[in-house]
């Protein structure tokens, strides 16, 4: 299924050359500097949903950027989507994270449900209404394991009901639709999972926990007990393990790595501004901080290349329809390595930028403040905990040899 979809959207892109990615990115940067940056500090301080940012992205029709053109979307590929996430990361980590998480859910539908009449209609509606998609994957009682569910979707004729205790649903209160993982029937084993699209007006969310964290405060990732009902064709036709390995896992780590790169790049830009201020005070001399900046920039480049190297590999595998490779340990290990590396690197880069900025970076009330960047940076290793990912790689590497 994934083969023809990717091939179609690639063909459509090349047939309509008016999609100019550089132009699009310039628009994203314009929205970032005029809207996201404007509200980022307030969003962070009050841990509130970045409504202005998401509205601006809606106005620019960016919520359907990954939807193929045949449904009215922009038909961006994963590399281009990653660039949008990186650009947003420069201005507001929470807004960029919300956009990235939305993009992951859109990709799940585009890759795995495009042939269902219901979801074809849904994609058009998503384009028209610029609907915001969220996700409820983790569940109380599964210990953070995405591949097992306690709750089950129950079908009653053409309808379904579903109740899930989700410890985290990022921007759940503000989403139009939520993709929920669950067992495919009350009789199914914990690992026999599907994803169900639950829609605003068809679900109730009873708060379970709050979201008052160090960073990514604007994602409003509170917990809820979700009670939903709807039509049976809102259940995605592909099994969740397939969706996870082919789309959710690689797509998440690529777009997260991209937005983390954006946050790190903005920290480096703030450090550069401080270096220039110092250089102006000592004309003719290269300040020591400039050397530190050069070293930090090298790390930033490695981080960025790591993201786009895997994004390009993924895009090409999709275009070739090489779903076997996406199932393989090799690709899965590389995807995990990208997450591990970027989530550590962002802390390193922002920390170095802070040393360069000195007290100007440490202050909360300075225009070179790195407080939000640093607090966001530490979240990267924790969202899908790095220890869990390292353990998965350790297991897979017992079987997988590099170079095959």
């Amino acid at each position, binding site marked *: 299924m994934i083969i023809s979809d990717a091939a179609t959207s690639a063909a459509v892109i090349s047939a309509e050359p008016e999609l100019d990615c550089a132009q699009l990115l310039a628009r994203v940067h314009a929205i970032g500097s005029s809207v996201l940056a404007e509200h980022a500090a307030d969003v962070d301080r009050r841990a509130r949903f970045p409504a202005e940012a998401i509205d601006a992205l809606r106005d620019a029709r960016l919520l359907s950027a990954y939807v193929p053109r045949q449904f009215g979307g922009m038909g961006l590929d994963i590399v281009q989507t990653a660039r949008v996430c990186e650009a947003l990361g420069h201005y507001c980590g929470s807004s960029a994270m919300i956009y990235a998480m939305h993009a992951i859910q859109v990709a799940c539908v585009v890759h795995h449900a495009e042939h269902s009449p219901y979801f074809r209609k849904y994609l058009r509606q998503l384009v028209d209404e610029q609907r915001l998609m969220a996700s409820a994957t983790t569940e109380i009682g599964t210990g953070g394991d995405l*591949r097992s569910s306690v709750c089950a979707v129950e079908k009653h004729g053409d309808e379904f009901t579903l109740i899930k205790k989700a410890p985290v649903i990022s921007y759940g209160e503000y989403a139009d639709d939520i993709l929920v993982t669950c067992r495919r029937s009350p009789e199914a*084993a*914990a*690992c*026999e999972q599907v994803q169900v699209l639950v829609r605003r007006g068809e679900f109730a969310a009873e708060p379970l926990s709050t979201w008052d964290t160090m960073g990514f405060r604007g994602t409003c990732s509170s917990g809820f007990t979700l009670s939903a009902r709807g039509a049976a064709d809102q259940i995605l036709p592909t099994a969740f*393990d397939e969706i996870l*390995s082919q789309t959710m896992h690689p797509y998440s780590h690529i777009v997260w790595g991209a937005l983390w790169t954006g946050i790190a790049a903005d920290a480096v830009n703030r450090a550069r501004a401080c270096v220039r201020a110092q250089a102006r005070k000592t004309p003719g001399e290269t300040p020591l901080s400039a050397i530190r900046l050069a070293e930090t920039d090298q790390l930033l480049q490695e981080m960025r290349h790591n993201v786009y190297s895997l994004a390009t590999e993924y895009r090409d595998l999709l275009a070739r329809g090489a779903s*076997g490779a996406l*199932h*393989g*340990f090799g690709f899965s290990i590389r995807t995990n390595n990208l997450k591990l590396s970027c989530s550590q690197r962002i802390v390193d880069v922002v920390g170095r930028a802070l040393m360069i900025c000195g007290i100007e970076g440490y202050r909360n009330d300075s225009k070179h403040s790195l407080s939000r960047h640093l607090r966001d940076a530490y979240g990267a290793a924790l969202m899908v905990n790095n220890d869990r990912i390292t353990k*998965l790689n350790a*297991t*897979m590497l*017992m*079987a*997988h*040899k590099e170079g*095959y």
Partner: protein
Amino acid sequence: MATNVSSQQSEATAMVREIVSQQNCLQADLATLSDDSDLYAAGLTSLATVGLMLAIEDRFDIEFPERMLGRATFRSVATIAEAVSELVK
């Protein structure tokens, strides 16, 4: 000769069944599954496949080459036994 091959195969099949059972890597009861049943459908995850692979390598004193490390090899008791028979030759 043909009898030898098939008895060797059925011996491998019985041993593979025993290992799968010991690994406790399925959500379904192995006793209810045939040699051709899809183990992934019965709850085998790709990660659990690694443990199963190591146990089989240990028991038969073999090493699976890279080309065999895929879902096709570990799909059922029969396909695993077939791979084992090929490797112990």
